[in-house]
């Protein structure tokens, strides 16, 4: 009986092998654009589908985590099947750029955004902006901090959440090191840790924790408010706040894209980039993803100030490609 079962299972496995080889072969060959996307399918696919409808270009998208996709592209090197890499943050784009795997972009495409939101090597361009903010409970936090330095005060003791392994937090610390130097950044982190800061893995967990009353305030990107509220299917008792003008806590990171040197279809890739940066699409992006347009000054998320009015510090996004110094610091302080 057991043997019969084994035979049955072997037969089933063999059949599935045959079936899968057939389907595998069918999906192999095509002349379409291959996109590696660190942006999630829910956010980007409506725009990609529109592009296909407009141009007839077939887009094959491999979705994944931005950092893992970057590692994969680095590993593939010149063998990569990818034409275009869309990333959630500037760091992953910078890593590909540093490895020399991106092709130069058309100046016209680059000029759609301000030069601080694109690669200094002219090989990737930002598409949308994401601001660092402090998310807080309006009910429980009456004294809003106007500088990250105030977060180390006793009134916030045990009430703050951060996500130290998250790349957006590490980007912020990188900017902090850049503006204040390593010793001052370490000092701030140590004081924050001494203030019994709570550690989370993800920004969304921080926002959810504020809503649940576990903590009162957290350092996150601005759009998590909307993301968590949408996921929970209800309004949440959390608001976004900005620090005083120029504070590193307000830095702007970008999600962007670059065309790979291995691209077999660089014209279509360029067309797609141009499309993603056109006015109409940018406006829809803001509506759909709650992020900032890097092209239009009048397209920004409801309830937040326009991008130009965000008192953000000047940060060199190309520094974000290598966070090892930042990680070393976080390790030294004992936060990761």
């Amino acid at each position: 009986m057991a043997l019969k079962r084994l035979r049955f299972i072997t037969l089933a496995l063999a059949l599935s092998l045959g079936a899968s080889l057939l389907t595998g072969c069918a999906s192999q060959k095509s002349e379409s654009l291959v996109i590696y996307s660190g942006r999630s399918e829910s956010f980007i696919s409506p725009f990609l589908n529109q592009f296909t409808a407009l141009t007839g270009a077939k887009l094959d998208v491999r979705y994944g985590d931005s950092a893992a996709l970057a590692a994969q592209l680095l590993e593939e090197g010149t063998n990569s099947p990818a034409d275009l890499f869309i990333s959630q943050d500037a760091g992953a784009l910078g890593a590909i750029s540093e490895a020399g795997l991106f092709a130069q972009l058309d100046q016209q495409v680059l000029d759609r955004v301000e030069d601080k939101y694109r690669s200094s090597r002219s090989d990737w361009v930002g598409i949308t902006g994401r601001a660092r903010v402090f998310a807080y409970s309006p009910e429980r936090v009456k004294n809003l901090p106007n500088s990250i330095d105030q977060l180390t005060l006793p009134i916030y003791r045990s009430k703050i959440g951060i996500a130290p392994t998250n790349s957006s937090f590490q980007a912020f610390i990188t900017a902090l090191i850049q503006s204040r130097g390593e010793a001052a950044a370490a000092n701030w982190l140590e004081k924050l840790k001494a203030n019994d800061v709570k550690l989370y893995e993800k920004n969304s967990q921080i926002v959810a924790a504020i809503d649940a009353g576990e903590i009162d305030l957290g350092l996150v990107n601005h759009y998590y408010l909307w993301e968590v509220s949408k996921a929970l299917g209800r309004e949440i008792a959390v608001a976004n706040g900005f620090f005083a003008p120029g504070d590193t806590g307000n830095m702007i990171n970008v999600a962007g894209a670059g065309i790979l040197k291995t691209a077999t279809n660089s014209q279509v890739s360029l067309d797609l980039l141009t499309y993603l940066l056109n006015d109409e699409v940018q406006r829809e992006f803001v509506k759909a993803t709650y992020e900032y347009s890097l092209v239009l000054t009048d397209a920004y998320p409801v309830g937040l100030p326009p991008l130009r009015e965000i008192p953000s510090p000047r940060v060199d996004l190309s520094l974000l490609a290598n966070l090892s110094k930042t990680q070393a610091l976080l390790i030294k302080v004992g936060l990761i």
Partner: protein
Amino acid sequence: MSQEGWARRQSRPSIALLVASTIALLAASLPLFYLFRRAIDAEISEISLILFRSKTLEILATTLGLTAAVTALSTLIGLALAWTLFNIDLPFRSALQALVILPVAIPSYVFTYSWISLIPGFKGLWAALFVLVLATTPYITLTTLAALRRSDWSTYEVAQTLGLNGLQIFVRVTWPQIKNSVAAGSLLSALYVLSDFGAISLLGVDTLTRAIENIYRGSFDRSSASILALILVAISALVIRLEERSRQRLHIIKSSNRIIKRAKTNDKLKVKLIALFGIGSYLALGLAIPLFQLLSIFLANSTSINYSLLFKASISTLIAACLGALIALTLALPVGVLSAQGSRLGRVSDKAILIVHALPGIVMGLALVSFGSSIPWLYQSLLLLSFAYALLFMAKAVGSVRSSVDRVPKNLIEISATLGLPKSATFRRVVIPLATPGLLSGTLLVLLAAMKELPATLMLKPIGFETLATQMWSYSSIFRFNEAAPYALLLVLIAAIPTFLINRPDEGDGIGGDQI
């Protein structure tokens, strides 16, 4: 003493076994080769920075401590569950035997998330211990149940006749017969903890695997990550050595249909109730509560389910995982047989397969990307994906194969030889049928693990080929656990089918799988 089993009697292994085992060894060496190649690129200063910082020591201590604690606890619980389910005549026993395996089908990040959403502030080392013990117990339960089913119960009867009590019988009769299988299950549990990322990252525990992942994320520094991964390899080699030393050769004289008869079961109501309570608690914590929590997350903010997507993802998951399990069995069988025969090639391949099992998914994925991307027809094909599954998880089958083959009794082989059957026929008609319960449970574990695999799947799947795990990820990565929930629930439901099939005892005696 070791001459008792069939395996030890084979003086010269067949060419086919040697070739197949060599292929398995080469396959298992791929990620190791990859790691060495990457690690060589690292600068000396970089290496010393990684190795000689105090945090590394702390990470090592956490990794080793957590692995040891989880393994010890899950072994105790798994053993208790298996023993209870086998010996006590409980209602719905066969269903319970399958249910206790199912927690292994829930991806660890989903499992962990459901607990976090249930208990605010659920994190840290204790939380990780709790989650990982629940998640890895099935490895021990399954291997132990398989071993109990093929135990020789004539000795049990003798022991009873001699007036030994329950505990004495367990220690002196049962334990020696199942010890190796329990150890094999514990090893899988330990390797699981070493390679887990989903649970430990959500719970904020710093193990080596998380440190490796952080390096990839933060600095895209593949050589530093490789050095840490090699440390992980060293730890898993150590764990494997420990397991190997605990293994004992068996003395099996006979085990045939005529004699196999499960001992009279203990029917006292009180005993049954205690047993049911124990099993029920495990099922509640490991299966019911997480699934119920997922369901309520879905219902709290239910969205319309895309049924065609759900259906397609289920089929894709089954095809890729079955194919992976088939390849894994094909590779693990010769290795297990050779290893049981004591062949050096078999033992080396066996160890290599186990060692790479402790590597995090991202490392395995990148190793296969590095090797596969230069072969366009193979890269990101279903074949490579299934091969990745086999490579990642054949360790889950190889131990079962080895121990099952090892305990095929010699008298049956002799009878077969007396009847004039050639070695290959003996293998096919005597060894394989006797080893079948072990082979099946090993293959099942590969199948269940492959169905929920994520990091390597994202890198290696054909574009547009979505599995339940990738769909689940695409929602959960943007915090939409409500939309991810149907995929998670379906994954467990589908996983239940092979689990029930393999665990279904044959009618009547309730000792399925060991009849010739």
